[in-house]
């Protein structure tokens, strides 16, 4: 009993000592607490645009209409109606042509250029007439529309800035595909209606096709699989804030490793080991302190998501409905980060070795762990590799709590994986330390 009291007393003394060291280092303190918040806010803001998949961004699109026909006019109307595109038909009061578009896009002055070829509308009308005639003859429609042989090579030319990202190109191509398909379908149906409403038919049998309504017969709406009043799954804050908060939290390894190496270099560690009683009391006190600092840091970053980001025009972070589970998760993530710091501080002999390795390893672990880009879009091999990153499991648990209505018991298996990482880090650190003192 007396031994236990002594042990607790040593732990408390170590926590107080670490607090003193922490408070005396004002610069370190502010770096540890403020820099991750700044990082979280900036990354959430920067990553917000691509996360919205360009939905709210307005692009200038160079537009050359060599067709001047029905389809080109319809496409121009469709593009103009969306808030995403602004069609530019002249630059410096000069009408654009194919060569000018290529030049401006190639120089990066504009990101997109679209050239509608001459004869496109005629070709599409001919194609629609062919389809309408085919269908009409099969259903006994009286009329027949003029048609000729198809002439290939009437493709719409789309030019992209060579520096444009693939996802950006895809979203533009999808929009263009959607508009052309819609226009072609409208044209085909109107031609079909024309064959059926020809002069020989009874006017009472007239087919009045309300195309807009018919095309809306089947709609697509994103629905949340979880019962939450907050539409959190699709907003960038919900993904970015926890991800960068975890990333920032893991940087606690820098002061931990730095202090461990400092204690070894200045002899404080030797003194601590010369004191009777288990060194684990002192180690536990240090770990406890850093875990609590990590938890504080993590909650500060989440609070920045709740209260600070709305001031920058972003939605507030929704922190789920399991506060106890979230607290436990924060403690376990912080404990895992702390144990990694102990490993780095033990394995490396000098701060010059430990600090760059520690920082870069966190960046690597975060990259493969889905902090930078979602793991789902990575190749299969990298998706499997993500499982060796504790940051991946940390983010997965937070996503469970914030986005999937995860419960306390539901996250326990994943928390035990994080604790497994900690155990491995401590075992390796223990082996290295033992070998060093031989």
């Amino acid at each position, binding site marked *: 009993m007396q031994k236990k009291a*002594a042990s607790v*007393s*040593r732990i408390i*003394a*170590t926590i*107080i*000592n670490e607090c*003193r*060291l922490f408070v*005396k*280092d004002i610069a370190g303190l502010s770096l540890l607490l403020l820099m991750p918040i700044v990082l979280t806010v900036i990354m959430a803001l920067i990553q917000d645009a691509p996360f919205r998949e360009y939905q709210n961004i307005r692009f200038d699109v160079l537009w050359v209409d060599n067709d001047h026909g029905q389809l080109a006019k319809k496409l121009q109307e469709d593009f103009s109606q969306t808030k995403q595109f602004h069609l530019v038909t002249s630059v410096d009061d000069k009408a654009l042509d194919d060569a000018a578009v290529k030049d401006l896009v190639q120089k990066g002055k504009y990101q997109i250029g679209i050239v509608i070829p001459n004869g496109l509308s005629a070709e599409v009308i001919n194609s629609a007439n062919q389809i309408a005639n085919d269908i009409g003859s099969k259903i006994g429609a009286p009329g027949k529309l003029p048609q000729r042989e198809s002439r290939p090579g009437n493709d719409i030319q789309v030019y992209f800035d060579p520096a444009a990202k693939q996802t950006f190109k895809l979203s533009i191509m999808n929009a263009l595909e959607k508009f052309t398909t819609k226009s072609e379908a409208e044209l085909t149906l109107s031609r079909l209606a024309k064959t059926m409403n020809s002069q020989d038919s009874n006017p009472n049998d007239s087919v009045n096709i309300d195309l807009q309504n018919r095309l809306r017969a089947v709609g697509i709406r994103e629905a949340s699989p979880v019962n939450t009043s907050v539409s959190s799954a699709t907003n960038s804050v919900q993904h970015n804030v926890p991800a960068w908060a975890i990333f920032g939290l893991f940087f606690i390894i820098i002061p931990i490793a730095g202090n461990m190496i400092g204690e070894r270099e*200045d*002899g*404080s560690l*030797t*003194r*601590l*080991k*010369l*004191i*009777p*009683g288990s060194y684990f009391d*002192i180690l536990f006190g240090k770990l406890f302190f850093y875990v609590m600092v990590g938890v504080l840091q993590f909650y500060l970053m989440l609070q920045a998501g709740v209260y600070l980001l709305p001031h920058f025009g972003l939605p507030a972070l929704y922190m789920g409905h399991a506060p106890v589970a979230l607290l436990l998760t924060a403690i376990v993530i912080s404990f895992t980060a702390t144990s990694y710091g102990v490993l780095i501080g033990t394995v490396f002999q000098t701060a010059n070795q430990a600090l760059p390795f520690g920082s870069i390893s966190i960046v690597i672990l975060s990259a493969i762990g889905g902090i930078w880009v979602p793991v789902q879009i990575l190749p299969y091999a990298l998706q499997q590799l993500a499982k060796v990153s504790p940051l991946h499991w940390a983010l997965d648990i937070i996503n469970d709590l914030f986005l999937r209505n995860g419960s306390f018991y539901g996250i326990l298996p994943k928390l035990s994986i994080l604790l497994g990482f900690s155990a491995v880090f401590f075992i390796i650190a223990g082996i290295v330390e033992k*070998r060093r*003192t*031989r």
Partner: protein
Amino acid sequence: MLQINNLHKTYKHALEPSLQGLNIQFSTGIIAGLLGPNGAGKTTTISIICGLVAPDNGDVVVLGDNVRTELDIIKRKIGVVPQSIALYPQLSVFENLQYVGKLYGLEGTELKDKIYHYLKIFGLDNNAKKSIKNFSGGMKRRANIIAALLHEPVLLILDEPTAGVDVQSRNMIMDFLKMYNAQGHSIIYTSHLLEEAQELCDEVAIIDNGKLVVHGNTEDLISSHHANNLEDLFLKITGTKVRD
């Protein structure tokens, strides 16, 4: 106070053994000097006595307890002053000593009184709240010694306690060690300052290449080897070749 029998130690990846059959016996209540050139094995011997390094072979008995089996008991009886300033530079000397004292199980006014008692002895009581980083070299050395004294050790082990300090600080440290020994405490002391060792030590053991070369009463050894002083004796025994 100390019995070292056939002590062997070879560090991993080391080409040469650090200790090869070292035997030393120091009696209780004396100031004993453990001397030797660089690489002789002094620090390894002290590290084994304190339990920081495990021996490959041999036995070390400190104040009647074996290092292999009773290390925690030994740690309570000994105070070690490492060569480096093993204190947190950001903290004040009072905060440093308070932490060390608490780890030894001291609390409250007992701890505070002891801290100020030793701060006064070592002339640091007016700088109790000053950070260690703002101390002079001599002040740091004195603070380093106090950290090993708070639990009133029976045996005080000092590794180069006066390295790099001014004359005034060295005199203060020397006077304290004599006083502490006069109170019945044993002291083991290593130093390269042989004039200082001659003044302080009742007995000296000179080791070289991990073995005991000579051991005995300081004055008896000097006269029996027809040396002028301890430094002369040291050079006669260990040679004049520079050690790295």
